[in-house]
């Protein structure tokens, strides 16, 4: 528990340091508060506060809090947020004040919304680069697969995000594998973000407020994964009035209820979804299949309480599960659970703090056998508990300092399995693994001049792989083959087996040429101490997370990015172009024929690889008017190098996409009817083809004479989706609102290849009859898929 001790000491120093700064700045007065949505009381993340006369501003943080310190005087403050009416307040500032603001939605969507320029040029004026934010309203307007509003599918429309293929779980950011994304749901990590193997994400759109993806320039307050942070924030719940939302789609039925507990002080939201394929299928199943279970659900709950001006607490919880079962014969289920408790506390007008406590768990369970003398039960899980204090000190409008830390305790249960054969039971369970991860960080967001702004940060991350358990030593083997175990040392609970520490510098720079143009640059080093062991094309729910050990080093990445940001026609169009280069070390790869499940000596089957990724990302966005949307284009290359694979030469990763173009548009035809379309054109991903057949004992085995990996590209992917939303008539005395959404996925029925694989005939065949072989194109979606769904609220 040494990490804890160190962490506390450093935090204490940081606190003392900031108090000194407080005293030094005492000639200023501070104005702070929360910015909320007037309709439902939800806090607004990233809303702007602007002081015209000083050309100064601030934005609200993840909790809707802002703070500005100014010399005493009279100011005009403008509060604004995209899609909302901005408000201007005249403030006589002679002492510290709290001003909470509620912004109303822009009344008529069809009219030009007049919002102050400061909010609208965020693309250019924000320090952040390589960051994309999607608000839930935009996500809800996108065309969908089977009518389900999808958060993870929508981020695939952004530059720099790719995937192995349709229906695959997870996503790949700038050449990173899927386990290199830290997917956070109210700050708790979600270890498997998919329902139904990858078709749908675990996030219920009714409960989501805001989605932010960091692909680069990740501030030092985030860490633990190499490639991205997907920060999903849940709604707090309507604090003004009861609100019920629901929907009936092809896959899920959804219902959410949110309401104030104490008006403007406490509220809650409960949102649930359940698939009902099994309910619909039941009448069609014969007796044998009557006990079939096939469903998935998730339930999201959140509540918050404003204790007073200085204290606010939030409690959020999520549980979701996929269930498949065939009577007693076989069953398979998996799911995530998270629980987050947060406490916002204002130490002073300028020192905002948040402490998060969370627990997160992913587990699966598989069983076979309806007979107690012959059966097999298998489960695995990853559990973690964490505390994460974070402080933001608004030193002055030009300087924001953040500091804090995090500590995580992990328990990995890589597999507990009991096999019973003819009444004899054998325990095949693997030992659980334990680890502690800690980090401290500091970052300073500073306007050096009117034009130059930086965020410089440093993160120190520590990892301790501990007992109870065995630490194994492995011997040498030929490159790319299994390493034999040579010795095992036993360790006590929390006794260190291997420690790692890394200093992760982070830097973001913005140079603003003028109101509408800026250059940005960033550097980040990231370290990752836990790894998803998965060697299939798309990750499966049975893949297991493993810690860094004495044999598995932490994965490391360095990324540099530069970007040009330009707004045109009075901020009607946002344009950005970014160039990045990323270098990976100690990537986890696999020997040929690796046994990744229920293998005590899994470390002997893992290889260490290097990676590199570089690319150009381009985005053009139109935010206003009847016709809105964005165009995103990525030109990129992602490669891997592993000793013993591909003749020791660099090879493209399975999700390497040279060109990735997507166009997403929305058009408001009338006040009630809106249309949207999205089109994607993506280079084919690389796959490996065998070249030859070899004969052994009557079998024909495919063989690649070049011994190459990912040597062929499948055909390009393209797809058009359309949707139309018809809103119910707005009647002032009627609370019920119903929308019909008609979607067509893959409009022109393109059979996009997920992969092309070689297949042999399984027909009975005498040994002297030559075997028939063929190449098969697998299309996960082979047709156009129309769907209709109905959403309501009251």
């Amino acid at each position, binding site marked *: 528990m040494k990490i804890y001790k160190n962490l506390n000491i450093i935090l204490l120093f940081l606190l003392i340091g900031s108090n000194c700064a407080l005293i030094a700045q005492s000639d200023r007065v501070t104005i702070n508060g929360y910015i909320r949505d007037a309709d439902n009381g939800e806090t607004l993340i990233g809303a702007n506060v602007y002081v015209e006369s000083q050309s100064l501003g601030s934005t609200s943080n993840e909790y809707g809090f802002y703070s500005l310190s100014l010399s005493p005087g009279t100011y005009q403050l403008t509060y604004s947020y995209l899609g909302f009416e901005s408000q201007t307040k005249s403030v006589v500032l002679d002492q510290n004040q709290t001003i909470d603001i509620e912004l109303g939605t822009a009344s008529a969507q069809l009219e030009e919304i007049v919002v102050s320029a400061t909010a609208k040029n965020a693309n250019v004026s924000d320090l952040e680069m390589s960051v994309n934010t999607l608000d839930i309203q935009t996500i809800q307007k996108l065309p969908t697969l089977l009518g389900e509003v999808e958060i993870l599918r929508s981020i695939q429309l952004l530059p720099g995000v790719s995937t192995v293929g349709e229906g695959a779980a997870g996503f790949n950011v700038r050449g990173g594998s899927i386990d290199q994304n830290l997917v956070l749901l109210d700050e708790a990590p979600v270890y498997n973000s998919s329902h139904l193997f990858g078709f749908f994400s675990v996030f219920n759109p009714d409960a989501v407020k805001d989605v932010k993806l960091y692909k680069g320039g990740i501030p030092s307050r985030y860490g633990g994964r190499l490639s991205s942070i997907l920060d999903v924030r849940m709604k707090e719940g309507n604090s003004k009035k009861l609100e019920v939302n629901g929907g009936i789609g092809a896959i899920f039925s959804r219902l959410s209820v949110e309401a104030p507990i104490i008006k403007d002080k406490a509220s809650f939201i409960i949102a649930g979804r359940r698939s009902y394929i099994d309910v619909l299928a039941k009448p069609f199943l014969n007796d044998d299949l009557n006990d079939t279970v096939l469903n998935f659900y998730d339930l999201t709950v959140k509540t918050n309480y404003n204790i007073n001006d200085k204290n606010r607490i939030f409690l959020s919880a999520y549980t979701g599960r996929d269930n498949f079962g065939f009577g007693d*014969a*076989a069953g398979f289920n998996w799911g995530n659970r998270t629980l987050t408790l947060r406490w916002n506390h204002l130490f002073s007008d300028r020192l905002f703090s948040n402490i998060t406590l969370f627990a997160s768990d992913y587990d699966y369970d598989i069983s076979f056998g309806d007979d107690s003398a012959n059966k097999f039960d298998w489960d695995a899980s990853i559990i973690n508990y964490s505390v994460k204090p974070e402080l933001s000190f608004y030193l002055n409008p030009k300087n924001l300092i953040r500091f804090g830390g995090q500590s995580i305790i992990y328990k990995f249960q890589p597999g507990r399995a009991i096999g019973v054969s003819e009444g004899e039971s054998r325990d095949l369970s693997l030992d659980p693994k334990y680890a502690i991860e800690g980090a401290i960080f500091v970052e300073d967001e500073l306007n050096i001049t009117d034009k130059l702004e930086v965020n410089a940060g440093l993160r120190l991350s520590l990892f301790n792989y501990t007992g109870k358990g065995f630490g194994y030593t492995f011997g040498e083997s030929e490159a790319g083959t299994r390493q034999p175990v040579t010795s095992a040392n036993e360790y006590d609970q929390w006794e260190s087996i291997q420690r790692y520490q890394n200093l992760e510098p982070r830097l973001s720079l913005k140079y603003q040429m003028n109101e509408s143009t800026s250059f940005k640059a960033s550097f980040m080093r990231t370290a990752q101490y836990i790894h998803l062991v998965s060697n299939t*094309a798309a990750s499966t729910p049975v893949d297991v997370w493993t810690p860094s050990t004495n044999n598995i080093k932490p994965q490391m990445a360095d990324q540099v990015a530069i970007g040009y940001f330009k707004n045109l026609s009075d901020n009607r169009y946002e344009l950005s172009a970014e160039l990045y280069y990323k270098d990976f070390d100690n990537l986890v790869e696999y020997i040929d024929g690796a046994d990744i*499940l229920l293998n005590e000596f899994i470390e002997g089957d893992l290889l260490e690889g290097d990676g590199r990724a570089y690319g150009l990302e381009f985005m053009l966005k139109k935010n206003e008017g009847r016709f809105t949307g964005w165009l995103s284009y990525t030109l990129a290359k992602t490669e891997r190098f592993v000793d013993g694979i591909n003749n020791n030469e660099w090879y493209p990763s399975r999700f390497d996409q040279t060109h990735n173009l997507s166009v997403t548009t929305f058009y408001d035809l009338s006040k009630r009817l809106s249309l949207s379309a999205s089109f994607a054109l993506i280079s084919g991903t690389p796959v490996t083809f065998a070249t030859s057949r070899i*004969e052994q004992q009557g079998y024909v085995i495919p063989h690649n004479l070049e011994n190459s990996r990912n040597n062929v590209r499948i055909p390009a992917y393209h797809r058009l989706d359309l949707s139309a939303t018809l809103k119910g008539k707005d009647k002032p005395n009627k609370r019920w609102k119903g929308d019909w959404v008609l979607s067509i996925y893959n409009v022109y029925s393109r059979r996009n290849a997920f992969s092309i*694989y070689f297949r042999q005939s399984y027909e009975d065949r005498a040994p002297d009859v*030559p*075997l028939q072989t063929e190449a098969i194109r*697998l*299309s996960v979606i082979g047709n156009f898929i129309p769907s209709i769904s109905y959403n309501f609220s009251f």
Partner: protein
Amino acid sequence: MNNLINYIPFILLALFIMACEDVVEIELGQQEEQLVIDGWINNLPTEQTITLSMTANYFEAAATPKISDATVTLTKNGSTEIPFEYSTDGKYTAMGPIGEVGDVFDLEINWNGNQYCAQSEMNRVPAVDSIDVELRVDDIFLDDGLYTQFFARDPEGTGDAYWIKTFKNGVFRNNPRELNIAVDAAFDAGTGVDGIIFIPPIRELMNPVDQDFLPIPWLPGELVKVEIHSISLAAFQFLEIARDQMINGDNGIFALPVTNTRGNVTSCTSDALVIGFFNVAAVSSREKLIE
């Protein structure tokens, strides 16, 4: 434990109604050819065969080219030479039995100016104690009918690898989905299992499977035979990769990386490339007439 994933297709079947598969034409281009040694022999008192062939284009549905001008010699325990004579169609044969458990065999092949070598030790094998025939009705995955399983107990001590071969009416079932291998009576090494009766999925994989990977019932009058061949761990890995690659198409979006088998035959005089495996097995067997 990759086998377990093979059960998931049942579930996937239900899900991928939207998915479709089309046969496409793939041009693999011209390749060089490599020598392939098919050297799986055993202790039975029957003709033992080692076959030499060449690789061929994967899509060429014809017999691969065979080698007739090589010399093939087996040496037992470093002293006794057992010559393999060329018979026909790339086959080199010698009459068994060639040895017993514990014997070490060196294979030497001379062809085209190169010498190729491999070594194998004959490992122990447990007896097949019985074959059970059971009438199963109303089973969720199975058609009503007669299904078999074999019983055998793995000896104490880890590291015993087996290839279980099924013969239907005297014909070896060479469907790659039925390729049945085990380590210490379970799916794979590294699980810590030892000394048990072979686990149910392995016992039951002796039933032929249909196009949907579901077992086909046996019919009265059919003769079922099971042979357990002792193999080395390297041979197990060779067959495991071979099976995974032959049936990788069943895995859909969860396909394993396309990789090559790793043989144990090498060129002992040059760096000439050669593919294939040499293993000398001890064999136990049992047969039963289905009634």
